[in-house]
């Protein structure tokens, strides 16, 4: 145990010498979500895109259709905004968390 390299963990203002588990080290770190970035919540195929760059959209307008798990998921605008950039095209197969559309308010 004398050779163990210890890490430091702070709890309630006190720094403890200890070791970390790999699960703790590999945990997903929290990032504040950027609501302007429309990312895929599930992997799938882009069926069609209903909007163009520069277009103004209202909240709940359908931006595109993402086919995943045999379901056609309509991806809608979370709020009224302008389409800043479209990163995908119809037919694209995308992974989870792929950036599809960027909005600007």
């Amino acid at each position, binding site marked *: *145990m004398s050779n163990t390299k*210890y890490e430091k*963990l702070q*709890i*309630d*203002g*006190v*720094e*403890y*010498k*200890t*070791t*970390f*588990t*790999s*699960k*703790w080290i590999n*945990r*997903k*770190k*929290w990032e504040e979500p950027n609501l302007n970035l429309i990312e895929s919540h599930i*992997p799938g195929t882009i069926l069609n895109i209903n909007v163009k760059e520069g277009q103004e959209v209202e909240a709940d307008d359908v931006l595109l259709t993402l086919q995943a*798990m045999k379901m056609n998921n309509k991806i809608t605008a979370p709020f009224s905004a302008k389409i800043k950039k479209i990163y995908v095209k119809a037919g694209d*197969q995308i*992974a*989870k968390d792929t950036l599809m559309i960027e909005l600007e308010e």
Partner: protein
Amino acid sequence: MSLKRNILDLRKRKEIVLQGGGEEAIKKQNAMGKLTARERIQGIVDAGSFHEYDMFVEHQSKDFDMDKKVLHGDGVVIGTGTVYGEPVAVYAQDFTVAGGSLGLMHARKITKIMDHAIKMRMPIIGINDSGGARIQEGVDSLAGYGEIFFRNTMASGVIPQLSVILGPCAGGAVYSPALTDFVFVVDNISKMFITGPEVVKTVLGEVVSMEDLGGARVHAAISGNAHFFALTEQECFEQIKKLLTFIPWNNQRKAKAFPAKPPKPEYKINNILPADPTQPYDVREIIMAVADDSDFMEIQQDFAQNIVIGFGRIDGETVGFVANQPLVLAGVLDCDSADKAGRFIRFCDAFNIPIVTFEDMPGYLPGVEQEHMGVIRHGAKVLYAYSEATVPKITVILRKAYGGGYIAMNSRHLKADFMFAWPTAEIAVMGPEGAANIIFKKEIKESANPEETRKQKVIEYREKFANPYVAASKGYIDSVIEPEETRMLLKHSIEVSSNKTVIVPQKKHGIPPF
């Protein structure tokens, strides 16, 4: 036919069944580093004690040309035997017969031996090695799984249930082990998952090997589904037999008592704990310094290592140890460690095993990840399990017992029967640093030398409050003890608890925060 011919005919019939899936299939099984179903059973039970039932059971399905297929024993071996002279029920899926696939008669054999085990109040050991549902049998196969899960649930808390994963165990099949008390896995042999790598790839686009998805190491260290990890099947069988020495045969009995043995002299209880509460040490050494023969059978030793659980003996009697581990994540409680401890406490309570808690923890693990994973409802499991337990409950506070952690780790307030504290114990609403920063915030801020004042106030708080004597003065701690006295007092506590009686409010069952 003469009797002799009848006997010879019977022998011949048995011989055929005992060949399982035949020489070729057995060769394949061995090539994967796996023993056959019957060899596995022999590896666990006392030599010559096993009696097999239902050898001549055959499947009755007709669809998809199944009526032309003979599946010996329908792919599963069931029976009873003894381990160290005590009865156990066993079933072992035979991968050499149709990949150990589960059809209706296969499931009926398993439920038959489960019913038998429940009626006879003996432990059941289930050896899983199966490709899954026998697709040709359709919904009958699903019915079979459901009947098994129901019995797992009915047997829970009545007889110990051990699941041994010695091959694939995929899809619905995984829920039988998940409902049982202890799951054993073997490196490179055990594979458990709900959806296999192929489906994961097709649906999610994630490429993962079977081993990385649901291998033995994954379940031992990451998912926490497994309780015991072994490198070989033989090592696994030894673990099973050893575990059985620590636990009772059913919930009406106590675990078998063994002759008392002192701890090994190399574990010196005075030399383990660093006085500085921020310094780590391995709490398992403290358990080994009090346990008979320093023999501690740790459970889930690679999962949520910030809490240590397992069985040992004090003066010959089995106890369940629960201990915060300052060596890992400073010994905090988090989602995983709360799950791990909560389940273990409930096992001990169901099977009349006294619980000894060694406490040294600074609180809960902070962070968005923990809060979003539900550390509130997971943490609540520990409170629930300790409060609900009516077996003798003994706590020894070694060092830190701060805030919510103090309450959760079997405090007097959750009806611990014996509360001991070492003189190094710090029982307080929070650590001295944090407390001083809050209580003396104004004084520190307004002083000429804030850093100096802060240090002074921390020392002041530690001297006045971070000790065992404040809690002892209120009767929350029964005795402040010297480390050397620990084993003797644990023994005493268990002795005087032998007729413990608790009356709980009448209810159907509680609703623990699963």
